[in-house]
C-alpha cells in the first residue's frame, strides 16, 4: 500500500526563515484532511512544493509515488486551489472554467454549472473585477468540479460570507461522498471544518505538530473547573496546556484521555469537566509548542 503523499526530511529556506524544517509526513489518501496552523506556519509552502509550484531547499517529495516536478502524469491528477490564484487580465470565469475543463480529465461540467448557480457567479465579468468572495468562488468551483484525485484547498473561503461557506462545505461533503478522493483543506476556521475533516495535520513553525484522526483528537484534552486548590491538586503530575483563574475558581486544560473512573472521580470531588473544542485544543497545543521551544529545555516538541 503506497501513500498518496510521502515527504521525507523536507526543508525550505527563505532568506532568513525556515518555512519548513525537516518535515517528514505521510498522507495515505482517500480522506478529507485538515491542514491547520497559524499564518506563516508553512502550510502554503508545503502545498506549493507538493504541487511543484515551488522548490524544496532539501528533502524528498513523492506524490502518487513519483516526483511531481514537470511530471504530467502526477500533475494532471491534482488540483491546487490557491488563496491568491492569478488569472490573465482579460479572463472571465467562463475562460477559467474552460481551461480547467481541458486540463482536468475528471472535470464535471454539470457540477460546475450547479455551483455557478449556487454562488451566483457573474460569468461575463473579467475576473479582475470580481469581488474577493467571487474570486474565491471561482477557485472553489474549479477545485470541486475538477474532481482531481488529490485536491488542495488553501484557505478557499476568503471573502465568502457564512452562507457561501456553508454552500462550499455542503457541496464538498456531497460530492466527496459520491466520489471519494483525497482532499486537503487548509483553514483557519477550525471550528467550521472540524466536522468535515477525518484527520488533522497541524503545522507550526515549519514542523508537524499533530498528525492524527480528528475523533482521537477530540478526547485528547479536557478542561477541569472548580476550586483553585482542588483543581491544582488534581492537575499536578498531568500535562497542563493552559490555566486560568477567576477569584478562587481555576480552569485548567490538561492533555490526556480520562477514563470513566477518572471522570467519576472528578465529579465526586465537586469539580466540573468541560470539553475542549478542536480549535481550543489546537490553539493550546500551538501556544505550548512555542513556549517549549522558547524555553531552554525544548525536549518535548513531541505532543502525543
Amino acid at each position, binding site marked *: 500500500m503506497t501513500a498518496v503523499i510521502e515527504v521525507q526530511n523536507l526543508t525550505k529556506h527563505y532568506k532568513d526563515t525556515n518555512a519548513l524544517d525537516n518535515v517528514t509526513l505521510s498522507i495515505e489518501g482517500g480522506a478529507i484532511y485538515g491542514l491547520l496552523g497559524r499564518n506563516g506556519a508553512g502550510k502554503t509552502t508545503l502545498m506549493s512544493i507538493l504541487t511543484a509550484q515551488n522548490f524544496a531547499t532539501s528533502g524528498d517529495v513523492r506524490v502518487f509515488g513519483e516526483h511531481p516536478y514537470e511530471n504530467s502524469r502526477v500533475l494532471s491528477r491534482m488540483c491546487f486551489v490557491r488563496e491568491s490564484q492569478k488569472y490573465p487580465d482579460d479572463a472571465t470565469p467562463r475562460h477559467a472554467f474552460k481551461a480547467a475543463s481541458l486540463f482536468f480529465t475528471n472535470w464535471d461540467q454539470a457540477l460546475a454549472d450547479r455551483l455557478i448557480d449556487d454562488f451566483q457567479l457573474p460569468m461575463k465579468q473579467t475576473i479582475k473585477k470580481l469581488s474577493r468572495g467571487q474570486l474565491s468562488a471561482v477557485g472553489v468551483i474549479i477545485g470541486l468540479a475538477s474532481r482531481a484525485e488529490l485536491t488542495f484547498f488553501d484557505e478557499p473561503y476568503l471573502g465568502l460570507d457564512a452562507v457561501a461557506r456553508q454552500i462550499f462545505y455542503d457541496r464538498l461533503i456531497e460530492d466527496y461522498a459520491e466520489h471519494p478522493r483525497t482532499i486537503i483543506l487548509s483553514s483557519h476556521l477550525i471550528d467550521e471544518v472540524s*466536522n468535515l475533516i477525518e484527520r488533522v495535520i497541524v503545522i507550526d513553525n515549519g514542523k508537524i505538530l499533530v498528525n492524527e484522526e480528528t475523533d482521537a483528537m477530540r478526547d485528547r484534552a479536557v478542561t477541569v473547573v472548580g476550586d483553585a486548590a482542588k483543581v491544582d491538586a488534581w492537575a499536578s503530575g498531568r500535562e497542563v496546556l493552559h490555566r486560568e483563574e477567576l477569584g478562587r475558581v481555576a480552569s485548567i486544560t490538561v492533555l490526556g484521555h480520562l477514563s470513566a473512573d477518572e471522570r467519576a472521580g472528578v465529579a465526586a470531588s465537586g469539580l466540573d469537566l468541560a470539553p475542549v473544542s478542536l480549535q481550543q485544543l489546537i490553539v493550546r497545543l500551538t501556544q505550548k509548542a512555542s513556549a517549549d521551544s522558547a524555553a531552554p529545555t525544548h525536549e518535548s516538541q513531541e505532543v502525543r
Partner: protein
Amino acid sequence: MIEEGKALFIQIAEQIEDQILDGSLEEESKAPSTNELAAFYRINPATAAKGVAMLTDKGVLYKQRGIGMFVATGARQTLLTERRSAFADRYIDPLLTEARTLGLGTDDLTALLRERATAAASITASSAESEGKPA
C-alpha cells in the same frame, strides 16, 4: 445538535438510537445511509460510517447487500435495556450531586419528582392530539 468533546461517530450512533427508541425509525425499516447522514449532519462520511458500524456491531442495524442498512428486529428492546441500565449513571447520579449542593434531601427530591411528573403528565395529555410526529 452536535456537541463538542464527544467522539462524533458516537453522537451519530446515539442520534440513530434515539430515532429507534422514539419509534420514528421502525424495526425492519431502512436506516439512513452513510452519505445521507454525512450530508444531514454535515460531517465526514467516514465518521458517519463509523457510527453506523458501531450499531451493526451491536446488532441494532444489519446490512442487506446492495440495498442498504436496516433496523434489526428486537433493536428497540436491546437499546431500551442498554439505556435503562445507563439511566442511573447518566441522570440520577448528577441529580443527586446537584441536590446535595443545594441542600435538598431525598424526601425533598421525591416530592419534587412527583410534582413535576404530575404536571408533565397533564401537559402531555392535553397536547397529545395536536402534536404531530416528527418525520
